[in-house]
Protein backbone atom coordinates (compact mmCIF):
# COMPACT_ATOMS: atom_id res chain seq x y z
CA UNK A 1 0.00 0.00 0.00
CA UNK A 2 2.93 2.31 -0.59
CA UNK A 3 3.07 3.63 -4.13
CA UNK A 4 6.15 5.40 -5.35
CA UNK A 5 6.23 7.28 -8.63
CA UNK A 6 9.73 8.12 -9.81
CA UNK A 7 10.14 11.65 -11.08
CA UNK A 8 12.37 12.68 -13.94
CA UNK A 9 14.14 16.00 -13.95
CA UNK A 10 13.56 17.20 -17.46
CA UNK A 11 14.78 20.18 -19.40
CA UNK A 12 12.98 23.36 -18.39
CA UNK A 13 10.77 25.00 -21.00
CA UNK A 14 12.81 28.12 -20.38
CA UNK A 15 16.01 26.38 -21.40
CA UNK A 16 14.37 25.03 -24.55
CA UNK A 17 13.19 28.51 -25.44
CA UNK A 18 16.56 30.04 -24.64
CA UNK A 19 18.26 27.57 -26.95
CA UNK A 20 15.84 28.51 -29.69
CA UNK A 21 16.35 32.22 -29.05
CA UNK A 22 12.67 32.58 -28.21
CA UNK A 23 12.78 33.18 -24.47
CA UNK A 24 12.58 36.97 -24.51
CA UNK A 25 9.67 36.90 -26.93
CA UNK A 26 7.93 34.23 -24.86
CA UNK A 27 8.30 35.97 -21.54
CA UNK A 28 6.90 39.19 -22.98
CA UNK A 29 4.00 37.36 -24.54
CA UNK A 30 3.34 35.15 -21.51
CA UNK A 31 4.72 37.00 -18.49
CA UNK A 32 4.99 34.78 -15.47
CA UNK A 33 2.31 35.62 -12.99
CA UNK A 34 2.64 33.11 -10.14
CA UNK A 35 -0.22 34.45 -8.02
CA UNK A 36 -2.72 33.91 -10.84
CA UNK A 37 -2.58 30.23 -10.04
CA UNK A 38 -3.94 30.83 -6.55
CA UNK A 39 -6.04 33.93 -6.95
CA UNK A 40 -8.02 34.60 -10.10
CA UNK A 41 -8.03 38.32 -9.41
CA UNK A 42 -4.34 38.31 -10.37
CA UNK A 43 -4.97 36.61 -13.73
Amino acid at each position, binding site marked *: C*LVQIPLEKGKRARVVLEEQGLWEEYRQKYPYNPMAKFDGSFA
Partner: protein
Amino acid sequence: VGPESMTNDACLSYYGVISIGTPPQSFKVIFDTGSSNLWVPSIYCNSAACNNHAKFDPRGSSTYRQNGRPLSITYGTGSMTGILGYDTVTLFSILASSFCLSQTEAPFMQNMQADGIFGLAYPSLSLSSATPVFDNMMNGGLINLNLFSVYLSSNNQRGSAVTFGGVDTNHYSGSITWIPLSKELYCQITVDSVSGNGQAVACNDGCQAIVDTGTSMIVGPQSDIDNINAWLGASSQNGEYIVNCSNIGQMPDVTFNINGNQFTLPASAYVYQVQYSSCITGFGATGGNMWTLGDVFLKQYYSIYKRGQNMLGLAKA
Protein backbone atom coordinates in the same frame (compact mmCIF):
# COMPACT_ATOMS: atom_id res chain seq x y z
CA VAL B 1 -15.85 28.63 -16.01
CA GLY B 2 -14.01 27.21 -13.04
CA PRO B 3 -12.49 29.14 -10.19
CA GLU B 4 -9.12 27.47 -10.33
CA SER B 5 -6.11 29.06 -11.94
CA MET B 6 -2.91 27.33 -12.82
CA THR B 7 0.72 27.86 -13.48
CA ASN B 8 2.55 29.06 -16.54
CA ASP B 9 5.89 28.45 -14.92
CA ALA B 10 8.55 27.83 -17.57
CA CYS B 11 11.08 26.58 -15.05
CA LEU B 12 9.24 23.49 -13.82
CA SER B 13 11.33 20.43 -14.47
CA TYR B 14 10.11 17.43 -12.45
CA TYR B 15 7.56 15.07 -13.90
CA GLY B 16 6.39 11.49 -13.50
CA VAL B 17 4.65 9.04 -15.77
CA ILE B 18 1.07 7.87 -15.26
CA SER B 19 -1.32 5.96 -17.47
CA ILE B 20 -4.96 6.63 -18.20
CA GLY B 21 -7.46 4.26 -19.74
CA THR B 22 -7.73 0.62 -20.79
CA PRO B 23 -5.39 -0.28 -22.39
CA PRO B 24 -3.25 2.34 -20.71
CA GLN B 25 -2.17 5.51 -22.47
CA SER B 26 0.93 7.09 -20.92
CA PHE B 27 1.43 10.71 -19.96
CA LYS B 28 4.14 12.73 -18.31
CA VAL B 29 2.61 14.88 -15.60
CA ILE B 30 3.74 17.47 -13.10
CA PHE B 31 2.65 16.50 -9.60
CA ASP B 32 1.24 19.78 -8.36
CA THR B 33 0.32 20.38 -4.73
CA GLY B 34 -1.11 23.74 -5.79
CA SER B 35 -4.07 22.42 -7.79
CA SER B 36 -6.54 19.55 -7.56
CA ASN B 37 -7.47 18.39 -11.05
CA LEU B 38 -5.77 16.00 -13.44
CA TRP B 39 -5.36 17.51 -16.88
CA VAL B 40 -3.95 15.89 -20.00
CA PRO B 41 -4.17 16.91 -23.66
CA SER B 42 -6.64 15.02 -25.81
CA ILE B 43 -7.25 14.26 -29.46
CA TYR B 44 -9.84 17.04 -29.46
CA CYS B 45 -7.07 19.60 -29.24
CA ASN B 46 -4.99 20.65 -32.22
CA SER B 47 -3.15 23.67 -30.92
CA ALA B 48 0.63 23.78 -31.14
CA ALA B 49 0.73 23.23 -27.39
CA CYS B 50 -1.23 20.01 -27.64
CA ASN B 51 0.50 18.76 -30.76
CA ASN B 52 3.81 18.75 -28.91
CA HIS B 53 2.48 16.25 -26.38
CA ALA B 54 0.92 12.85 -25.91
CA LYS B 55 -2.85 13.08 -26.36
CA PHE B 56 -5.51 11.05 -24.66
CA ASP B 57 -7.81 9.25 -27.10
CA PRO B 58 -11.04 8.31 -25.32
CA ARG B 59 -12.06 6.12 -28.26
CA GLY B 60 -9.13 3.89 -27.45
CA SER B 61 -10.18 3.29 -23.85
CA SER B 62 -12.86 0.80 -22.92
CA THR B 63 -13.15 2.27 -19.43
CA TYR B 64 -13.63 5.90 -20.44
CA ARG B 65 -16.89 7.56 -19.53
CA GLN B 66 -17.61 11.06 -20.68
CA ASN B 67 -19.15 13.61 -18.40
CA GLY B 68 -18.93 16.18 -21.17
CA ARG B 69 -19.15 19.17 -18.92
CA PRO B 70 -17.04 21.98 -20.39
CA LEU B 71 -14.47 23.48 -18.08
CA SER B 72 -11.97 26.27 -18.29
CA ILE B 73 -8.99 27.07 -16.12
CA THR B 74 -7.57 30.55 -16.32
CA TYR B 75 -3.94 31.23 -15.73
CA GLY B 76 -1.74 34.27 -15.95
CA THR B 77 -1.87 34.75 -19.67
CA GLY B 78 -4.76 32.79 -21.08
CA SER B 79 -6.93 29.81 -20.43
CA MET B 80 -7.04 26.08 -20.77
CA THR B 81 -10.35 24.59 -21.80
CA GLY B 82 -11.56 21.04 -21.70
CA ILE B 83 -14.25 18.57 -20.86
CA LEU B 84 -14.65 16.45 -17.80
CA GLY B 85 -14.26 12.71 -18.20
CA TYR B 86 -13.83 9.63 -16.07
CA ASP B 87 -11.35 6.83 -16.50
CA THR B 88 -8.94 4.58 -14.71
CA VAL B 89 -5.64 6.16 -13.75
CA THR B 90 -2.68 3.85 -13.29
CA LEU B 91 0.06 4.97 -10.95
CA PHE B 92 2.98 2.59 -11.23
CA SER B 93 1.22 -0.65 -10.38
CA ILE B 94 -1.85 0.64 -8.60
CA LEU B 95 -5.19 1.48 -10.15
CA ALA B 96 -7.19 4.47 -9.02
CA SER B 97 -10.54 5.04 -10.62
CA SER B 98 -10.74 8.74 -11.15
CA PHE B 99 -11.48 11.70 -13.33
CA CYS B 100 -9.51 13.37 -16.02
CA LEU B 101 -10.08 16.41 -18.14
CA SER B 102 -9.48 15.41 -21.65
CA GLN B 103 -9.12 18.51 -23.74
CA THR B 104 -6.66 21.28 -23.32
CA GLU B 105 -5.16 24.28 -24.99
CA ALA B 106 -2.45 26.16 -23.19
CA PRO B 107 0.31 27.87 -25.19
CA PHE B 108 2.75 27.91 -22.31
CA MET B 109 2.74 24.12 -22.25
CA GLN B 110 4.08 23.81 -25.78
CA ASN B 111 7.66 23.75 -24.60
CA MET B 112 7.18 21.85 -21.38
CA GLN B 113 8.31 18.27 -21.25
CA ALA B 114 5.32 17.27 -19.17
CA ASP B 115 2.06 16.59 -21.00
CA GLY B 116 -0.30 17.43 -18.18
CA ILE B 117 -0.79 18.35 -14.56
CA PHE B 118 -1.70 16.03 -11.70
CA GLY B 119 -3.28 18.06 -8.91
CA LEU B 120 -2.66 16.97 -5.32
CA ALA B 121 -4.35 19.77 -3.37
CA TYR B 122 -7.59 19.51 -1.41
CA PRO B 123 -10.87 18.45 -3.05
CA SER B 124 -12.47 21.81 -2.29
CA LEU B 125 -10.18 23.32 -4.91
CA SER B 126 -11.24 20.89 -7.60
CA LEU B 127 -13.38 22.02 -10.52
CA SER B 128 -16.90 20.67 -10.79
CA SER B 129 -16.42 18.86 -7.51
CA ALA B 130 -14.39 16.22 -9.35
CA THR B 131 -12.73 14.02 -6.76
CA PRO B 132 -8.94 14.35 -7.00
CA VAL B 133 -7.05 11.17 -7.84
CA PHE B 134 -5.33 11.04 -4.45
CA ASP B 135 -8.71 11.20 -2.67
CA ASN B 136 -9.96 8.38 -4.88
CA MET B 137 -6.94 6.34 -3.88
CA MET B 138 -7.71 6.96 -0.22
CA ASN B 139 -11.43 6.38 -0.55
CA GLY B 140 -10.79 3.16 -2.41
CA GLY B 141 -8.47 1.86 0.28
CA LEU B 142 -5.59 1.67 -2.18
CA ILE B 143 -3.15 3.23 0.26
CA ASN B 144 -2.89 2.84 4.01
CA LEU B 145 -2.13 6.34 5.22
CA ASN B 146 -3.79 9.56 4.14
CA LEU B 147 -0.57 11.22 3.14
CA PHE B 148 1.90 11.56 0.33
CA SER B 149 5.46 12.81 0.22
CA VAL B 150 7.71 14.44 -2.33
CA TYR B 151 11.45 14.15 -2.79
CA LEU B 152 13.10 16.39 -5.38
CA SER B 153 16.69 15.47 -6.03
CA SER B 154 18.93 18.53 -6.24
CA ASN B 155 21.78 17.25 -8.27
CA ASN B 156 20.94 14.09 -10.07
CA GLN B 157 18.65 13.59 -12.99
CA ARG B 158 17.18 10.57 -11.22
CA GLY B 159 16.11 9.71 -7.70
CA SER B 160 13.22 12.14 -7.27
CA ALA B 161 9.89 10.60 -6.35
CA VAL B 162 6.35 11.09 -5.13
CA THR B 163 5.34 8.49 -2.56
CA PHE B 164 1.68 7.87 -1.89
CA GLY B 165 0.59 6.38 1.42
CA GLY B 166 3.82 6.84 3.34
CA VAL B 167 7.28 8.31 3.64
CA ASP B 168 10.54 6.92 2.32
CA THR B 169 13.26 7.08 4.96
CA ASN B 170 15.89 6.91 2.22
CA HIS B 171 14.87 10.38 1.11
CA TYR B 172 15.58 12.40 4.24
CA SER B 173 17.88 12.62 7.21
CA GLY B 174 17.22 13.69 10.78
CA SER B 175 13.77 14.09 12.20
CA ILE B 176 10.59 15.30 10.56
CA THR B 177 9.24 18.66 11.70
CA TRP B 178 5.46 18.79 11.65
CA ILE B 179 3.79 22.09 10.86
CA PRO B 180 0.04 22.68 11.14
CA LEU B 181 -1.65 24.02 8.02
CA SER B 182 -3.17 27.46 8.42
CA LYS B 183 -5.71 26.80 5.68
CA GLU B 184 -6.81 23.48 4.19
CA LEU B 185 -7.25 24.43 0.58
CA TYR B 186 -3.68 24.44 -0.54
CA CYS B 187 -0.85 23.35 1.68
CA GLN B 188 -0.77 26.74 3.37
CA ILE B 189 1.40 27.43 6.40
CA THR B 190 2.46 30.36 8.56
CA VAL B 191 6.06 31.55 8.19
CA ASP B 192 7.37 33.49 11.21
CA SER B 193 10.07 35.35 9.31
CA VAL B 194 12.80 35.05 6.69
CA SER B 195 16.28 35.75 7.97
CA GLY B 196 19.91 35.84 6.96
CA ASN B 197 22.92 35.99 9.24
CA GLY B 198 20.52 36.04 12.18
CA GLN B 199 18.63 39.13 11.06
CA ALA B 200 15.18 39.32 9.53
CA VAL B 201 15.34 40.21 5.85
CA ALA B 202 11.69 39.64 4.91
CA CYS B 203 8.33 38.61 6.31
CA ASN B 204 9.23 40.43 9.53
CA ASP B 205 5.79 40.16 11.12
CA GLY B 206 4.97 36.70 9.83
CA CYS B 207 3.39 35.75 6.54
CA GLN B 208 1.39 33.06 4.82
CA ALA B 209 3.02 30.66 2.38
CA ILE B 210 1.73 27.95 0.06
CA VAL B 211 4.01 24.95 -0.32
CA ASP B 212 3.72 24.16 -3.99
CA THR B 213 5.48 21.56 -6.10
CA GLY B 214 3.92 23.24 -9.14
CA THR B 215 5.97 26.41 -8.70
CA SER B 216 9.67 26.38 -9.44
CA MET B 217 10.85 29.37 -7.41
CA ILE B 218 10.26 30.93 -4.02
CA VAL B 219 7.78 33.68 -4.69
CA GLY B 220 6.78 36.50 -2.36
CA PRO B 221 5.51 40.07 -2.11
CA GLN B 222 7.46 42.60 -4.15
CA SER B 223 8.88 44.57 -1.22
CA ASP B 224 10.03 41.45 0.65
CA ILE B 225 11.60 39.94 -2.46
CA ASP B 226 13.30 43.24 -3.24
CA ASN B 227 14.72 43.26 0.29
CA ILE B 228 16.07 39.72 0.08
CA ASN B 229 17.62 40.24 -3.33
CA ALA B 230 19.14 43.59 -2.34
CA TRP B 231 20.61 41.91 0.73
CA LEU B 232 22.04 39.18 -1.50
CA GLY B 233 23.55 41.79 -3.81
CA ALA B 234 21.40 40.81 -6.80
CA SER B 235 20.54 43.37 -9.45
CA SER B 236 17.06 43.59 -10.90
CA GLN B 237 16.73 43.11 -14.63
CA ASN B 238 13.43 42.57 -16.45
CA GLY B 239 11.81 41.26 -13.31
CA GLU B 240 14.61 38.84 -12.53
CA TYR B 241 17.39 39.16 -9.99
CA ILE B 242 20.84 38.61 -11.46
CA VAL B 243 23.92 37.54 -9.53
CA ASN B 244 27.44 36.66 -10.60
CA CYS B 245 27.68 32.90 -10.95
CA SER B 246 31.21 32.91 -9.62
CA ASN B 247 30.02 34.46 -6.33
CA ILE B 248 27.76 31.60 -5.29
CA GLY B 249 30.34 30.25 -2.86
CA GLN B 250 30.45 33.55 -0.99
CA MET B 251 26.72 34.21 -0.85
CA PRO B 252 24.92 33.82 2.50
CA ASP B 253 22.33 31.29 3.57
CA VAL B 254 18.68 32.33 3.68
CA THR B 255 16.59 30.87 6.49
CA PHE B 256 12.85 30.41 6.68
CA ASN B 257 11.67 30.37 10.28
CA ILE B 258 8.56 28.25 10.49
CA ASN B 259 6.71 27.22 13.62
CA GLY B 260 9.79 27.73 15.74
CA ASN B 261 12.09 25.81 13.41
CA GLN B 262 14.72 26.97 10.97
CA PHE B 263 14.81 25.83 7.36
CA THR B 264 17.98 27.06 5.73
CA LEU B 265 18.79 27.36 2.04
CA PRO B 266 22.41 27.68 0.91
CA ALA B 267 23.19 29.81 -2.12
CA SER B 268 23.75 26.68 -4.18
CA ALA B 269 20.05 25.94 -3.67
CA TYR B 270 18.57 29.34 -4.42
CA VAL B 271 20.78 30.43 -7.33
CA TYR B 272 20.58 28.84 -10.72
CA GLN B 273 22.19 29.39 -14.04
CA VAL B 274 20.25 30.67 -17.02
CA GLN B 275 21.07 31.85 -20.50
CA TYR B 276 24.50 33.24 -21.45
CA SER B 277 26.12 31.93 -18.28
CA SER B 278 24.34 34.42 -16.05
CA CYS B 279 22.73 33.38 -12.80
CA ILE B 280 19.48 34.42 -11.17
CA THR B 281 18.23 33.99 -7.65
CA GLY B 282 15.25 31.76 -7.04
CA PHE B 283 13.41 34.55 -5.21
CA GLY B 284 10.76 36.05 -7.46
CA ALA B 285 8.19 38.75 -6.83
CA THR B 286 4.46 38.59 -7.21
CA GLY B 287 1.45 40.72 -6.45
CA GLY B 288 -0.36 40.32 -3.16
CA ASN B 289 0.97 39.22 0.19
CA MET B 290 1.13 35.46 -0.23
CA TRP B 291 4.39 33.54 -0.47
CA THR B 292 4.92 30.36 -2.44
CA LEU B 293 7.61 27.88 -1.45
CA GLY B 294 8.31 26.04 -4.67
CA ASP B 295 10.94 23.64 -5.93
CA VAL B 296 13.85 25.86 -4.85
CA PHE B 297 12.76 25.20 -1.26
CA LEU B 298 11.53 21.64 -1.77
CA LYS B 299 14.79 20.42 -3.27
CA GLN B 300 16.33 21.06 0.15
CA TYR B 301 13.46 19.72 2.24
CA TYR B 302 11.62 16.45 1.82
CA SER B 303 7.94 17.34 2.17
CA ILE B 304 5.18 15.19 3.62
CA TYR B 305 1.58 16.18 3.07
CA LYS B 306 -0.39 14.61 5.90
CA ARG B 307 -3.84 15.25 4.53
CA GLY B 308 -5.61 13.31 7.27
CA GLN B 309 -4.32 15.59 10.02
CA ASN B 310 -3.84 18.77 7.96
CA MET B 311 -0.14 18.86 8.69
CA LEU B 312 2.97 19.42 6.62
CA GLY B 313 6.12 17.52 7.46
CA LEU B 314 9.54 18.84 6.46
CA ALA B 315 12.87 17.08 6.84
CA LYS B 316 16.32 17.65 5.39
CA ALA B 317 16.32 16.06 1.95
